[in-house]
């Protein structure tokens, strides 16, 4: 197990540098005039342009300039310095403020997906073709069909503004209660997928030989389902949820915008909009680490769920 984890960690280092290089290259290629983008619709004075150009090495253009800036970036990164965004703030500080709130939001969403999605999926799987199964099918299809950009404002308007059940926005230091609504909105998509996945997996495993054997041995139904079926059914669900954790963090752009949560998604969006290369690369670098770590956790969880994988 230890060697397995170590090997994965080494792969992560490679993946990390590969992805940051690609992101840096893409950001560099897409850049038109970051200084003007920063100033919005106002003309930029020659003095300010000269100042910013020098500060961010923007005078180095072409392929040579790209590697110059990338190596400069990596050098600083290895010293733990993420650099400054184009607005002059330390990216480290920005991330330090943005992460906690996004992590809380993502975990609420994940918890919603696990508690409701997996539970309902198991029930639907056991009572296949029943009323519960059919009604969840309709509901999940409905949720999957509505994009977050529609769902979030609707939830905000009805639950926040009209009926005043939740605060309409969460802000920078939200309470658990204020984060609940955005969390549910964010989690609803993964909830629906997790539910369908669990349901299919459980339904399939219920027909498997080992269940028939267990049943013929005279085991009680509850034990068959909770120990034998559930354990085997969770493998695809765990894979999905592991990847989904990364998605929830990077994909919160819309939800964070609608509910005014200055988290990672918002900063990423702002960075892209203002062509703030250093900020975007900084955030993406950390997102890459999140993906890599959540994949690692998924692999370890596999080993827990299925001993055959452990001894490979």
């Amino acid at each position: 197990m230890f060697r397995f984890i170590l090997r994965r960690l080494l792969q992560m280092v490679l993946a990390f540098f590969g992805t940051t290089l690609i992101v840096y290259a893409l950001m560099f290629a897409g850049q038109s005039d970051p200084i003007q983008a920063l100033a919005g619709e106002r003309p930029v004075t020659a003095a300010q342009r000269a100042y910013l150009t020098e500060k961010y090495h923007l005078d180095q253009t072409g392929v040579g300039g790209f590697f110059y800036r990338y190596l400069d970036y990596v050098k600083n990164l290895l010293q733990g310095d993420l650099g400054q965004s184009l607005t002059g703030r330390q990216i480290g500080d920005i991330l330090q403020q943005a992460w906690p709130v996004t992590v809380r939001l993502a975990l609420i969403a994940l918890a919603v997906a696990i508690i409701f999605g997996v539970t309902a999926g198991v029930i639907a799987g056991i009572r296949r073709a029943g009323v519960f199964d059919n009604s969840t099918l309709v509901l999940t299809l409905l949720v999957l069909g509505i994009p977050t950009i529609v769902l979030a404002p609707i939830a905000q308007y009805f639950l926040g503004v009209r009926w005043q059940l939740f605060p309409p926005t969460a802000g920078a230091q939200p309470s658990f209660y204020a984060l609940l609504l955005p969390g549910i909105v964010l989690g609803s998509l993964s909830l629906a997928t997790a539910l369908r996945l669990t349901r299919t997996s459980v339904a399939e495993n219920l027909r498997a030989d080992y269940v028939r054997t267990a049943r013929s041995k005279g085991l009680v139904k509850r034990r068959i389902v909770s120990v034998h079926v559930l354990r085997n059914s969770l493998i695809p669900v765990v894979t999905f949820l592991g990847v989904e954790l990364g998605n929830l963090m990077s994909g919160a752009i819309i939800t964070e915008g609608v509910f005014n949560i200055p988290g990672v998604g918002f900063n990423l969006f702002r960075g892209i909009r203002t062509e703030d290369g250093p900020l975007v690369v900084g955030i993406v670098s950390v997102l890459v680490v999140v993906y890599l770590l959540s994949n690692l956790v998924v692999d370890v969880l596999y080993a827990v769920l299925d001993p055959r994988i452990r001894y490979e």
Partner: protein
Amino acid sequence: MRVRRLAAWTALPLVVTLGLAACGSGGDGGSSGGQDAAVSIQISEPQHLVPTNTTETSGSQVLAGLFSPLVDYDAQNKPYEVAAQSVTSSDNNKVWTIKLKDGFTFHNGEKVTSDDYINAWNYGAYAPNGQGASYFFEKIAGYQDLQGEKPKAKTMSGLKKVDDLTFQVTLAEPYIDFKSMLGYTAFYPLPEAAFSAPGVLNDSYEQAPIGQGPFKMKGTWQHDSKLDVERYDAYPGEKPQVKDVEFRVYQQLTAAYSDLQSDNLDVLPTIPTENLSTAQSDLGENYQTSPMSSFQFLAFPTFEKDYSKPDVRKAISMAIDRDEITKSIFKGSQQSARSFVSPVLPGYRDNTTGAAGQFNPTEAKKLYQAAGGPSKITISYNGDGGHKDWVDATCNQLKANLGVDCVGSAEPKFADLLTKVEKKQPVGLFRMGWVMDYPSMEDYLGPLYSTNGSSNYYGYSNPEFDRLVKEGAAAPTQAEAIKKYQQAEDILAKDMPVIPLRFGENVYGHSSKVKNVQMDLFQRVNLVKIEAAG
């Protein structure tokens, strides 16, 4: 055994969630009425909070609370003294003497002296400091010596201290509107505490700016979240009616609008376009409008053969039904424009474009065909600014009224559009906007249409026009200046380098917890006048 371990794995995220969530703090103090009230105002994240580096509205709104300007503007938009005792000029408006009022102190207790103004302005003008509003000091003598990569001087020769409360500003050329100019954000003073060494700004100053205005910082700037300020009791000017103001940062106006509707936010200075059609019924009496200085227009690439004839330009202008577009698309939140300067200004005249500004499809078509206008028109705009609807509507009108083909072409950003225009790539007509910095006709005419104007992207050049604007700026009295500016505007009406389309308005809303919410021409809430309701 195994079952339990599995349960532990699934329960873990939930426990972590609840644990993390418990760390959060929530709830606001709630406002009590009268003089101790607290109000919240929407802003977006300011880029900077150093006066000479602040050119956008949000930063300017915060600084307006923390600082007191030398002059402010009255109902006719003429300047009157606030932090200044008097602003007087020599006969030819070249040498200005500014006397400060006694009794102003910075929030750290320092007395405000003329040095604080001189140091701040020199800091702002010095090119290597990279200050965004640096060009506002352009008119002061010696500004050029502070430019370039290795400037010749660190201080402007035009700034001279007379005594602790008096200083003298010598301009490079006479400028009648200099007093008006002093109301702009860039002309605030900076305390000694702002500098770590002479001419070097303290890095941490921006996180908690120290000013001499009616409000002082409470804590530091909480990026992306909020800025709290409270009443500064030693302020000698007009006292605010509320004690605390929270400038709350929103990323999206629609989110702020939801908060406004449920009384979680007190003032929203701009109603989002999406909500314009319902805002009046949503907010009732709390929906308000007031004049603002923005000006939207369509510019011609006058260097292109197709658009080089004034008659073609006039014909296109006549084929556009401005009133229809302001009504159907902007729901009356903007006004049709038929002049080149904003109605808020002294010297504004209605309808200076004359016949070219009147909607007249039959005449337009005749004129267009006689002048030989192009058979295909493109209107370029930046796709990130919500301009698509009105550009498409304008195009449809041109198609119908001139019998030409017309398409709207979106560039990703305004910067991309400007780059193309600067390289003289064919973009067709393009949209532009202007918001004044201080009330003066020169602030509209000079930068936009002078041959070397900073925002003259359309290659318009008329020596007669340049001469008149210059003479206006150098005029000995306001009346004479306005006369010259108006003559210059008449030349624009003849040449039509741009088509004036709309003048903006503040369209804002407030909660039922506040009253007397006033907004100025720069889209800022008047922090001294706002009161708690009831």
